[in-house]
């Protein structure tokens, strides 16, 4: 009971600390990005306003500071492993923000954060799997872990396409997993996820329509790696994969339709076209399929409506994942 109360206090502390520090870092960083000319065009608006980018450092640093404070108090190596692996993903993203990495280099580099988490010694290769129950994957698990980091990070990166879409869909798809983490008693997983929420809330306030800040790849790759880390330390990889299905629709479809790895900015035929603030699927049959293209395949839609629909779909996948855990997973 005392242990549980300690973890509840630590989780609350970590979330509040990350929320406050993230807000302070955003207030400090954004004016500096503007004054130094670190801005990007918002291509989905008719006026194409210049938006400060990347706000990723404000999100990651608040997460890292809060996690380090709490890991020091709790004496948890797993939390330090999460900070290290997500930090590496953040640095890869920051490098990509400053000087774009190749379409094959980035996914390969994103395997390294998985290795860093693996060497922390806190990962048990016994994931809970729907239908099968708790598996023993002593050999194959490490390959799956590396793939998971790459897939999650790139999936979140693909989802960071419209104002507020990435943070709101992360909230919607992972909030239904909180009861799963509580049921499994994964204190470290729960603490890491709520700390991530705390860091993302000030960013979401600035990134929602009409956006005042863009996170950049440093933010999206960090968030993807953080979700993969939470899944790995709590052995809920399959449930995170189900809840993040909308994130993977774009990634897998683009991969399958193009037939290889390409950067979002390097795709020759764009999945969607923008006309006067209305987004619709590119009529070309060669255009790759993305989640936004699917949503606008029947009629053109404005940005906030697409984001709302993505949030609903993310919530559905999160609830499906929660249902799978409680009703279709032997424990």
């Amino acid at each position, binding site marked *: 009971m005392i242990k549980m109360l300690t973890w509840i206090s630590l989780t609350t502390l970590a979330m509040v600390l990350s929320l406050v520090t993230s807000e302070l870092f955003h207030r400090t960083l954004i004016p500096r990005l503007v004054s130094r000319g670190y801005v990007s065009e918002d291509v989905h608006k008719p006026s194409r306003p210049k938006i400060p980018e990347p706000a990723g450092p404000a999100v990651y640093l608040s997460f890292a500071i809060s996690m380090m404070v709490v890991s020091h108090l709790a004496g948890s190596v797993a939390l330090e492993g999460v900070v290290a692996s997500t930090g590496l993903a953040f640095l890869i993203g920051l490098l990509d923000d400053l000087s774009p990495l190749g379409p094959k280099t980035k996914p390969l580099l994103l395997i390294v954060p998985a290795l860093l988490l693996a060497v922390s010694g806190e990962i048990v290769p016994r994931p809970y799997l*729907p*239908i099968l129950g708790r598996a023993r994957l002593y050999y194959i698990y490490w390959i799956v872990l590396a793939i998971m980091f790459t897939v999650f990070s790139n999936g979140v990166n693909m989802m960071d396409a419209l104002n507020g879409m990435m943070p709101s869909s992360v909230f919607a798809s992972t909030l239904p997993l909180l009861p799963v983490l509580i049921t499994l008693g994964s204190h470290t997983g729960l603490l890491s996820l709520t700390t991530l929420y705390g860091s993302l809330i000030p960013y979401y306030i600035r990134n929602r329509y009409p956006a005042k800040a863009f996170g950049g790849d440093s933010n999206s790759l960090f968030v993807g790696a953080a979700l993969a880390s939470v899944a790995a330390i709590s052995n809920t990889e399959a449930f995170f994969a189900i809840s993040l299905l909308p994130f993977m*629709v774009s990634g897998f479809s683009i991969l399958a339709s193009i037939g290889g790895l390409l950067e979002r900015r390097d795709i020759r035929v764009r999945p969607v076209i923008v006309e006067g603030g209305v987004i619709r*699927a590119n009529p070309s049959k060669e255009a790759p399929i993305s989640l936004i293209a*699917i949503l606008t*395949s*029947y009629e053109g839609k404005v940005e906030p409506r697409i984001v709302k629909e993505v949030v609903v779909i993310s919530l559905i996948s999160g609830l499906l994942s929660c249902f799978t855990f409680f009703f279709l997973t032997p424990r």
Partner: protein
Amino acid sequence: MLHILLPHPEVRIVDKGFLLAIYSVVSGWVLILMSLSLIKVLITTLGTKGFLIALTEAVVGFLALGGALYLWYLTLRALFLKVKSTLEEGNGGPGGT
């Protein structure tokens, strides 16, 4: 009497694009569960003793998942192109809120 609670017939709450997106997620979920069910059948029939048997089960499971994902993509693409063809026929006006 209940009809007054329903929206006007011309007001679309959900459109075909939104339904297709929901289909893509739900069908993906079903495919994952079906692949895992296949592995469960293999484990029940072949057992789990021996490295080669375990490896066979893992390989068959991954191949089943890969094949199912490819079929999922082909179906999704066919439906996507069908829905998109209606957009080309003059349904591309602003439908936003």
